[in-house]
């Protein structure tokens, strides 16, 4: 029994050495930190008084990359909630596949762009008439 136990310990030690070698190999190369949420950083200062903001996109959120982008945007802008493709909010974040598509969506919604960052993310505002009814429910700021 003790021989079997020794063999078992030997196998465990072999596995540890094998895994440790693998671990060292995976750690050696430097890798860039990737975080798509960086596309949305800076907006949190403008939107910090808003509890809900529309997140307008023409990308398919069932696919991994657009969904990751949305989730990371949500993380960066929390505690503001990003309401996917719901234009009934005072502020809208437009993250589309192209500028043409983004501006076409803004035209349909009746919102005007306020700013656009280097990553192509547009912050837009709804026309006052439409957004007035949402102000009381969507914000806690006067």
């Amino acid at each position, binding site marked *: 029994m003790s021989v079997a136990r020794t063999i078992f310990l030997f196998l465990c030690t072999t596995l540890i050495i094998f895994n440790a070698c693998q671990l060292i190999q995976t750690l050696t190369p430097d890798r860039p930190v990737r*975080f798509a949420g960086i596309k949305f950083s800076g907006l949190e200062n403008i939107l910090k008084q808003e509890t809900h903001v529309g997140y307008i996109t023409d990308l398919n959120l069932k696919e991994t990359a657009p969904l990751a982008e949305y989730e*990371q945007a*949500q993380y960066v802008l929390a505690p503001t909630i990003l309401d996917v493709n719901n234009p009934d909010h005072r502020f809208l974040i437009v993250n589309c596949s192209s500028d043409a598509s983004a501006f076409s969506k803004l035209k349909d919604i009746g919102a005007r762009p306020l700013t656009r960052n280097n990553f192509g993310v547009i912050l837009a505002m709804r026309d006052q008439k439409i957004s007035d009814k949402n102000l009381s429910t969507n914000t806690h700021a006067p």
Partner: protein
Amino acid sequence: MNYWLSLIISSVLGFLCVNIFRARNRIDPALHLIASLGLGMALSAHIIFYTLFTVGQYNAGFIWFLHAALFLILLTASLRGPQAKAIANLGLLRRLRAPHRPATCLPWLRHGAGQGRSRGRRNDKILWLGIGILALLLVPLWREANFYPFGGWDAWACWNLKSKFIFLGQENWKNMLDPLMWRSNNQYPFLLPLMNVWGWNFYGSFSPLVPMFNTILFTFLTAMLMFVSLRRLNGKLFSVVPPLVLFTIPFINTLSISQYSDIVLAFYLLGSFVFLIAAHEKKNIALAILAGCFCGIMSFTKTEGTLASVVIAGLSVPYFWKNKNTQPLLGPFLGAVAVSSLPTVLFQLFWAPENTSFINGLTSPSNPVTFVRLKMIFIFLCVELISPKWTGLWVLLMCGLLLGKIRSFKNGLGIVPAFLVLYLGCTLAYYLINTHYEIIWWLQNTLNRVLYTALPTIVWWIFYALWSEQKKTT
């Protein structure tokens, strides 16, 4: 430094709390330290939860007040009772006199009091050597963590997101429970987010370092708990093998620094069994209370933790009841479970939103349970266990189980396999019944993490069975 301050405060609270439990019975001092950290972190998180519950929002002043009040209560209780002697024996004076001798700095870390001086020194050496070896694990953890400062998917989509809502949301923090937030698993309890908020409390901002440190801390605590609890059996350096077997696997390393709640759940699950089995073996009420606390705390980590907690509490009844000597432990254990799972109960009663990602396949005509789904689950489970990402660990564990033979299922250890069968059975049944998700996608993304949370307990159980038999034969 700020993070360490939060750790020190939490561990002092935890230490005093464990000290009260051990009024009547001794606890291995190294286990005492690990339990103090685990319990202290959960106490701080619970204090923030009760602040949210009573004040309605995160309030740093009130959190400080509750910490100070709890500290004074615990200190008074410690100084008045038989624990006073234990506090007096902390060895701080000795540390000042002989700082170059770590063994004498913390004499209460020794393996068992009243042992011979030479044996005590040998055990000290093994302990410090083991800690040193396990500390090496921190290097790959820290290095890997720096490549993922924001953690994995669920870190920014769920756990850290909730932390930000609580920390920055003021009275609107409950928006994280809004149905619009269904993608963030808003029906999950949130122990880890509260621990992150406790760390941020010292930074004054949401530093990404805190979630990173927290997951590294819990990984290290899990490894230490495995080592220290197995060292009790044989007193040899072999006890570092089980945590090393586990935490040198690159996949485990990556999951551990992903800032998920899984490592927190894994730690409290392991702690529940370590203390439960030790309590059963030694008829020790202090350990039974500690096991109950860990079990209750676990229920607030995530939904799987709640399930695990319920299963353990249910199994503890026959476990303690069938032996007359252990019957008195059942009350303290269940009492501790009830007290420490109060945040889970309050959350489920008052705040938990409806689970929108659930379709009952047994009653749904559009998404019914099929035989193919059942077949897929079992095939996937078998394929998962031999997947190269585990580097043969499951095969090795199977060998260990065969070596341990009947011992792994008998006496005090029988509760672990009973738990594993019930826990994994319930999880697989949920995979089968909830037809909201495509089964392959769901299994690919979550099954490995369910196994990961149970792995420290499984590894510990198998090694414990092997070495407890060795102890018996020698």
